[in-house]
């Protein structure tokens, strides 16, 4: 039941996003989105994904939203001289014919105050807003991630 209404919602949002982007030259491709499963009572969760821009012009992301959370922001983890801090990224340029990776230890979506308990296997809807008024909506699975740390990239 939950999956079906989520699918309908994604389809609706995707339709709305596509409709508004009818005049856009190229759109961002979002792949491998995932939400890190967090301890049951967590109020903040992280989402990661890959963004590809196949077009000839840079595309600027200027917002994130999700119907499953009260608010969402794009952040970058910065570790400077051993101290970790989070920078709120208000605008992110995705270069022409290029891409950006959101992954642990780097850029990530910060999702505040989930509207329901989320566990591995659940699905979350994420919308990436572009500065020209268009948006891209994707479904992201909640995943229990095992980290060994050996494959981390650092930007």
């Amino acid at each position, binding site marked *: 039941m939950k999956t079906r209404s989520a699918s309908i919602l994604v389809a609706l949002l995707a339709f709305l996003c596509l409709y508004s982007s009818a005049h856009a030259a190229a759109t961002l491709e979002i792949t491998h989105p995932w939400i890190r499963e*967090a301890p049951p*009572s967590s109020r903040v969760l992280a989402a990661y994904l890959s963004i590809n821009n196949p077009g000839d012009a840079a595309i600027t992301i200027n917002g994130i939203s999700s119907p499953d959370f009260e608010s969402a922001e794009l952040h970058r*983890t910065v570790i400077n001289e051993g*101290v970790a801090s*989070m920078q709120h990224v208000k605008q992110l340029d995705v270069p022409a014919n290029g891409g950006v990776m959101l992954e642990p*230890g780097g850029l990530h979506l*910060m999702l505040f105050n989930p509207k329901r308990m989320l566990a591995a296997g659940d699905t979350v809807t994420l919308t990436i807003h572009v500065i020209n008024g268009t948006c891209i909506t994707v479904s992201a699975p909640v995943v229990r991630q*095992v980290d060994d*740390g050996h494959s*981390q990239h650092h930007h």
Partner: protein
Amino acid sequence: MSTPEKQSKTARILIVLVLAVLATAAGIWSASIILDRRVNLEELEAIRFPVARQLPPFELVDHNNQVFNEDALRGRWSFLFFGYTHCPDVCPTTLSVLNSVAHRLQDLEADIRFVFVSVDPERDTPEVLARYVGYFNGDFIGVTGTEQQIAQFTRELGIMHMRVAAEENTSDYLVDHSASVLLIDPDGRYHAVFSPPLAAGKISDDFRKILEAYR
């Protein structure tokens, strides 16, 4: 010289040569074993302090509401990580890596504990910590205290933490914090530090070398 005498002389030379080669080989082999036994601490990625500093007395509380003080750090190795439960990226990732470290070191007979110390005692009560650390590993310990107790403990260990005001919702503030993992030895001394980027393989390998050198 007659042929039989020549043959026995050649045989003697051959025997001596073979014995010489065997002796040299035996010498090299036993020397390499002796050299291997000496742990090469220069290969560590962790920083192991030349003089491990004794920690002064402190008083915190664990996720079971039990006192957590300097006695808790004696008689066992402790990996300490400082973070907060409202941290979505660095802390879950690090605790997941430390869980991998715990699994990798399972074969060791050493008593090892993993401790998550909150730098956000206002929101991280023992009850909150119990739910949080238990998710990553049932044996992990969560520790909190008053602002003052946490400030004193972090200061002693050179751990930095600072609240960062959230832009809209004031209850969603973030905390900047040191992302290193600290190693306390069974004498309760600050023994080594693992700096980010943290990898379970590196941490485990380094710990085995540190343990070997400690014995």
